[in-house]
């Protein structure tokens, strides 16, 4: 209370002094009073000036800080990675005619900055109205996390983006991204391959171009948003489309579990088309998972069965120990080491070499292999590239398998296509060498001229052997198991193969792997067409053998693609060109 009384005291004094203050100066009664006042006034003024100056300095500091903040780049506030990596370009993939197989399109991806999220529950609820398939719990946890950046959904459509923008949720944003788009969908899926969410090629030619240095370029940011030179493939999209169509229909009609085909230029090694079903949509690789990812043409190995007899007979002819006019006794089965080798279409007589081929005699081919001998057999198959991994651009290539030690029984079974598993693609490549004059050309998925091919080629069989093989293939086409592959005007020659599949370590007689190796036009072969069909339950005319399902697929492919491939039909009696006038 003493304080209050003191205030009252001061108050009364104030009355006195204030009054005095108002009246006294003019009277000039108190000179010393005036003097102290002047002195204190000038001191107060100089001190005021100091105060004013210090305030000025503080305001300058604040202004400087504001300018500093104004100069700061707002992007540095949030710890988001540089956009460049998301905008990294990939080159377009084109077919040989310039049609687009793969290209980049711009999309946006949705992210959140969790520390800016006001109400995670509300944000999840509202996002779900646009993206109903969002995992609410996962998104909620992301929004509640202590990180500063979270992807919520990659690669949205423009419609989704505008709808999310309209929600007006704070703390989320969009980043532009490049997305790989495959206009053909599954058409050339196994050749083109696909990319992962970060635009890195993880399969097919996409992976190949990454392995060629694109990935390194992207890593140092050289590919950001730049237009890259497109990569042209050897594929002809028209042919590819037909091939896939035919094998897809074949797999369905013949109730098979898989099918595949390749169209290969015998002079350049270019793959014009190659398809394997089941396949997948590279735009959405996760769908049709696993069973569709397998490229059976290059990444699956199979016992080729009778198709392999082509190579056995070529080996015999090339070794000089066998001629087309030779005959072999196929009247009795061969018994060796507890196995009995018999013929499927048993004629039980002596067969000439063309007859062995025509009737697909196991006994006959076994005897030819026996004549050449085990080392010669093994060497010949190695020369044709059937025992080593196929060199090509596709990353998905499986190495063939062969017995660790070749005994007589192995040589005999391998002579008719059991005991060695090869990929269908490499079988087609070896087949090409038998009909193109003897040159083995590594296959390619990139355009290649004949000169380039000749530089890479190695001569594996004699010209005469190749000529004989063309004759045999043609003969088999006309008179043998390949009849259903014939296309009027296009002289198709080929060899079927119906192999029993190994199921649980034993050959199952009710499950076959059927293949047809064909060349056309056989008088001057330009293309190899190889089809296979895995475990068909039926075929044309009801049979399950290669002649009634793999061969018709070849027919369908050739009849539909030969005009596109620039092969002229010859409708003459003797297979020569026919003059037609309308």
């Amino acid at each position, binding site marked *: 209370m003493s*304080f*209050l009384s*003191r*205030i009252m005291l*001061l*108050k009364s*004094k*104030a009355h006195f*002094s*204030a009054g005095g*203050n108002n009246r006294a100066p003019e009277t000039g009664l108190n000179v010393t*009073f005036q003097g*102290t*006042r002047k002195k*204190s*006034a000038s*001191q*107060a*003024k100089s*001190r*005021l*000036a*100091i*105060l*004013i100056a210090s*305030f*000025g300095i*503080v*305001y300058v*500091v*604040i*202004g400087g*800080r*504001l*300018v500093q*903040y*104004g100069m*700061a780049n*707002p992007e*540095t*506030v949030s710890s988001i990675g540089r956009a460049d990596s998301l905008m990294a370009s990939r080159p377009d993939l084109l077919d040989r005619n310039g049609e687009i197989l793969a290209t980049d399109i711009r999309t946006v991806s949705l992210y959140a900055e969790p*520390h*800016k999220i*006001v109400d995670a529950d509300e944000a999840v609820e509202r996002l779900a109205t646009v993206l109903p398939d969002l995992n609410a719990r996962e998104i909620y946890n992301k929004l509640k996390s202590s990180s500063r950046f979270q992807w919520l959904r990659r690669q949205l459509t423009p419609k989704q983006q505008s709808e999310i923008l309209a929600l007006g949720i*704070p*703390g989320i944003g969009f980043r532009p991204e490049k997305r790989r788009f495959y206009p053909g969908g599954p058409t050339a899926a196994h050749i083109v391959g696909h990319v992962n969410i970060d635009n890195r090629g993880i399969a097919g030619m996409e992976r190949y171009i990454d392995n060629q240095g694109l990935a390194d370029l992207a890593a140092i940011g050289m590919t950001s948003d730049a237009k890259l030179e497109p990569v042209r493939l050897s594929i002809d999209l028209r042919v590819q489309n037909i091939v896939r169509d035919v094998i897809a229909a074949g797999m369905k009609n013949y109730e098979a579990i898989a099918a595949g085909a390749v169209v290969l230029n015998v002079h350049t090694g270019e793959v014009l088309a190659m398809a394997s079903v089941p396949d997948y949509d590279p735009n959405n690789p996760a769908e049709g998972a696993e069973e569709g990812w397998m490229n059976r043409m290059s990444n699956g190995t199979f016992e080729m069965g009778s198709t392999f007899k082509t190579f056995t007979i070529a080996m015999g002819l090339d070794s000089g120990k066998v001629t087309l006019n030779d005959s072999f006794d196929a009247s009795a089965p061969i018994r060796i080491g507890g196995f009995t080798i018999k013929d499927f279409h048993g004629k039980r007589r002596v067969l000439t070499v063309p007859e062995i081929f025509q009737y697909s005699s196991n006994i006959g081919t076994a005897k030819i292999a026996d004549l050449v001998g085990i080392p010669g057999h093994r060497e010949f198959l190695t020369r044709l590239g059937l025992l080593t991994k196929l060199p090509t651009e596709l990353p998905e290539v499986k190495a063939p398998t062969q017995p660790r030690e070749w005994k007589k029984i192995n040589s005999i079974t391998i002579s008719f296509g059991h005991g060695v598993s090869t990929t269908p693609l490499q079988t087609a490549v070896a087949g090409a060498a038998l009909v193109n004059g003897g040159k083995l050309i590594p296959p390619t998925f990139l355009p290649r001229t004949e000169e380039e091919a000749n530089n890479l080629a190695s001569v594996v069989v004699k010209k005469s052997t190749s000529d004989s093989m063309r004759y045999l293939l043609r003969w088999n086409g006309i008179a043998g198991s390949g009849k259903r592959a014939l296309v009027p005007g296009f002289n198709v020659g080929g060899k079927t193969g119906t192999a029993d599949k190994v199921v649980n370590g034993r050959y199952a007689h009710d499950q076959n792997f059927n293949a047809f190796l064909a060349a056309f036009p056989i008088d001057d072969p330009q293309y190899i067409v190889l089809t296979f069909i895995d475990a068909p339950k039926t075929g044309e005319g009801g049979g399950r053998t290669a002649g009634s399902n793999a061969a018709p697929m070849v027919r369908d492919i050739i009849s539909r693609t030969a005009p596109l491939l620039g092969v002229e039909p010859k409708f003459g009696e003797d297979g020569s060109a026919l003059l037609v006038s309308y």
Partner: protein
Amino acid sequence: MVSRAERGPVADWFWTIDRLFLATFILLMGVGFMLSFAASPPVAERLGLDSFHFVKRHALFLLPSLSVMIGISFLSPRQVRRAAIILLGASLGMMVLVLFIGQEVKGSMRWISIAGISIQPSEFMKPAFVVVCAWLFAEHAKQPEIPGNLLSILLFGIVGALLIAQPDLGQTVLTATVWGGMFFMAGMPWLWIIVLAALAIGGFFAAYTVLPHVAGRIDRFLTGEGDTFQVDTAREAIIRGDWLGRGPGEGVVKRIIPDSHTDFVFSVAAEEFGILFCMVIVMIFAFLVMRGLSHAFRERNDFNRFAVAGLVLQIGIQSLINIGVNLELLPAKGMTLPLISYGGSSMVAICVTAGFILALTRHRPEKRAVERSLFRSGVGVPAE
């Protein structure tokens, strides 16, 4: 009504009021109300209230605040002094009461509820304290035998003790700085200045060692470690706003700044209206301070000089502390931005300060030394 020839109280007021000061205060209140739309809805929503709850309350307080300011500006210097003494007595009394019957908010006893209205007596204490101290200093300058300086030191001791008891360190620092500034102006000997500066530094270290939350804040400010969420988000808001701002209602960071409508309204202003706008706000405050100080410079009457300078110092330093915290130039300290931040008690109290300034700067021809003006007034001097 405002005729120059027949001067009634209103006409008198109209012709003698410092219109630039008046306009500046009203402008700041307008800016504050506008920013209330940007800054307060997120807080209201967080508290589960109607989005515009605080905007409405802000509007509700504008009229009484304005009335208080205008009403006080009618007072003569002598009436100002009397009003200040009464107000100081009342607010000091309430500050004592607060310690016993106050509402505890975030660990401090600062608020007292009278007739359903929450009042922070220390806010009203500030202008009254400044005016009373100005009077004591002036009396001492005029008649050295009056122990004005000693009394003002005693008064400051009482006020400081009451503030620390709450505890309210921010107000203590503010009051001490304003008081120190006035004492400095009143001719504090340099020896005293050194002693007081040493005391201030000692007090600072004492606070640092005795009060753990103060130590924590200062450590965070110096090291940038620990929970710097408030200042981090404030900086993010300002930088995100860039020069021109994101536009009204486009603020995102403002939603997560705590106390966006009071202590961090400056950051919200930056995010939505831009750094240039913030510079304008700073310039308005700078204008206020400079104009007030230059008025004091020209003023012949010691009491008016000390009081005007002290009052603008109070507004100026409070705004500097607030802006400094927003710009991470000072350790985090709860301090409202005068006339702009939301807060009923603080707004009315600041309007008391503004009213005092207006009252003391009214044109009184017999007391102004026009010939030695540091900053020439922009307003035409009325004919005499």
